[in-house]
């Protein structure tokens, strides 16, 4: 690795972006009594996890348009900059559908390359008028819906659970199987035959829902991709989803670590700060080391995403990031509660919210175990003469147990 001039410039741009996002979120936190909203324990009732005023501010800053090509046909930024925003949202435990609307939906539409779909949704996504979600099913699992054709109309049935940001979505990209091949299409919400069931989660800063589709009719013009292209779109979104959540988790873990360090430096017992006791100090250091390792893992993933790496490389890098920012990040949040002692055990204090957001992040887009196993299976498949697992990514997504699903 050599640090080039271009990289230095990009690093500076990212630092500026990070600062402006942090400032924006700081102002938002100042005018929003998140704790009061969350106290009810029912985010949807409290108007969360989507705050239209914050969303508008983010649109005004251009944060919703980072990946969408402007008039020159070039996107203003890359996934690395989106990750900067996601990390800041995680740091502030900010409820926001940013991951789906600014990263996953635009990436799917752009990779699908259908002009009609792009013209219909991208402008609204960038201004903030359209909010999105992606219902592609879980990492390594078959596509979750079945689709049949009736003339120019697709008729869709099936249930997709644990769809992130579903509660606020006005469009949901759905993946399914049509005539034995994959297809991805856009469903405008609300739609006849489509039911959105927002699930009550321990992490009240997020909206996660179940999308039930019962003979929902979708015009053929809403197809984002089909056949091999659909498989590619689904793979890409699954990897980017993992990377995006890893970026969020980095911010959450960093925040949890900083909170614990600050508390350990300030809370006094036996006449001195508890952070001077090695038992407490060493917990804090382990948190810090985990955060630094997570930061590096995310850089590895960003590098792969920015290079436009092949599917196997991107999958590997996504797994590195999601695994390193999975269980190790959750452990940071656990220690944060422990360092806070009795206060850390209360609803009023923040530490439990780090834990809950990190555990939800870990559970979506492939958990730590799944990603570790995928990395190992790829390595085992590359052992000369070893029959091992073969290439875990070789099979199609239509069949069962695909995309490197762990056995």
């Amino acid at each position, binding site marked *: *690795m*050599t*640090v*080039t001039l271009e990289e230095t410039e990009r690093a500076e741009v990212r630092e500026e972006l990070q600062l402006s996002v942090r400032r924006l979120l700081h102002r938002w936190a100042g005018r929003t009594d998140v704790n009061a909203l969350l106290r009810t324990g029912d985010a949807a009732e409290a108007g969360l996890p989507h705050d239209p005023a914050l969303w508008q501010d983010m649109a005004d800053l251009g944060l919703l348009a980072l990946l969408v090509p402007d008039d020159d046909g070039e996107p203003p930024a890359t996934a690395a900059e989106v990750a900067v925003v996601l990390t800041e949202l995680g740091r502030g435990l900010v409820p926001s559908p940013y991951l789906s609307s600014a990263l996953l939906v635009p990436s799917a539409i752009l990779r699908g390359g259908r002009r009609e779909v792009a013209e219909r949704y991208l402008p609204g996504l960038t201004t903030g008028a359209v909010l999105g979600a992606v219902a592609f099913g879980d990492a390594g699992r078959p596509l979750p819906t079945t689709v049949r054709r009736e003339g120019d109309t697709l008729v869709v049935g099936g249930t997709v659970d644990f769809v992130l940001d579903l509660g606020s979505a006005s469009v949901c990209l759905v993946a399914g199987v049509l005539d034995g091949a994959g297809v991805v299409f856009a469903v405008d919400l609300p739609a006849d035959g489509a039911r959105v069931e927002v699930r009550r989660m321990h992490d009240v800063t997020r909206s996660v829902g179940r999308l039930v589709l019962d003979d929902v009719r979708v015009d053929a013009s809403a197809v984002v991709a089909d056949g091999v292209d659909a498989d590619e779109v689904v793979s890409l979104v699954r990897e980017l989803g993992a990377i995006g959540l890893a970026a969020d988790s980095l911010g959450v873990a960093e925040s949890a670590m900083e909170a614990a*360090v600050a508390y*350990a*430096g300030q809370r006094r017992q036996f006449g*001195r*700060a508890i*952070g*001077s*006791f*090695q038992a407490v*100090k*060493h917990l*804090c*250091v*382990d948190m*810090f*080391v985990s955060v*630094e*390792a997570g930061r*590096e*893992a995310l*850089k*590895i993933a960003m590098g792969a995403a920015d290079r436009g790496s092949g599917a196997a490389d991107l999958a590997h890098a996504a*797994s*590195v990031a999601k*695994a*390193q920012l999975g269980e190790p990040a959750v452990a940071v949040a656990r220690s944060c509660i422990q360092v806070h002692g009795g206060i850390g055990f209360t609803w009023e204090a923040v530490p439990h919210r780090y834990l809950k957001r990190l555990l939800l992040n870990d559970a979506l887009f492939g958990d730590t*175990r799944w*990603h*570790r*196993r*995928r*990395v*190992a*299976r790829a*390595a*085992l498949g590359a*052992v000369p003469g*070893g*029959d*091992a*697992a073969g290439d875990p990514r070789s099979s199609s997504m239509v069949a069962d147990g695909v995309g490197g699903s*762990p*056995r």
Partner: protein
Amino acid sequence: MSGPGEDLDAYRGSLRAWLAANVPRNWRSEWARAETQENIGLQRRWLATLVEAGYAVPHWPAEFGGGATLMEQAVLHQEFARANAPEILAFNVALNQIARTLLDHGTPEQLQHLGGMLRGEVWCQGFSESEAGSDLPALRMRADRDGDSFVLNGHKVWSSYAHLARWGMFLARTDPAAPKRRGLSIFLVDMTSAGVEVRNTRKITGGAEFNEIFLDNVRVSESAVLGGENNGWAVSASTLNSERGTANVGHFERFDVLLQKYTAAVAREGLDSDDVVVEGLGRGLVESEVLRSLGMRTVAEAAAGRPVGPQAAILKLYFGDLIQRVTAEAVATLGRETQVVHEDEVLDSYTSGHWMHDHLNSWTWTIAGGTSQIQRNLIGERALGLPREPEIR
């Protein structure tokens, strides 16, 4: 126009070509079978080959046979590790810690020792004592001035390769009245001097790396003082901080090669259907990749002149935990066969692929050069700004 990256690629290419032509085949088993003196002879021959090719001391200044940039050094360590090149463990202390200290503080006369190091003179370091490990400044070895010479008395422990050493570098107390850190000085001592006795301490692998050194009225000239009388604590910082991250890159790379061996073993033993084993392997692979990336980034930051901060301590802590866990997992996974002693285990490598041997040696990384607990204190106090534990006097 060629950027620095292209130059590095070219450098890497030339290293690979040289390694392919020069790394002795089966050196590991050959060296392991050799008796001690013969083994040192083999290491010395490889050192001579490296000196001739210009790869022995890339981190020294150009006038002494080095002059590689930090990035080139990192690439060199990386390629040597990947090529499974021989490790010249007996000379590491001389070529790294002691050479660094001489280069930073040596008189022109003392710098003459660098030539001897390149010819394969073994050096040892006498810092730790039985009552001064993590708390090094508490050391008791005395150096009493007697006219223009000093008389040394004391007892040192954990000294690598002292049984083979021609020279030693010792940290001793020259002013017993001064506060702990102030009254120390560093001495360069001829290990054949009258009054020096070395006793081997077998380590947990059974290997003969460590020694105790007894100094009984050993007389040295005042020209043996390195970096000034009573300035020993400041001078020792060069020794303790000689690692600038580049050699780490090589260690991390060798560990990755070890993980490839573990991967192959899991496949060979048909354990790839065991989810627990596969997950553990995956965790090791992920963390090794993160470590290697962090290692290279640290060197790149240092090369760009940016402060590296507590990075060395972070890397050491992370690596220690990682190598200990992965070797433990390999021992557990591969079962009773790992409990058999292998003939070529006498090598001090921690990446031999004999899992029990490597596991036992993994404590090197959590104890030597500052225990993991000391690293945590360091990071907690310097990077996180947490208060120190009150000092006991």
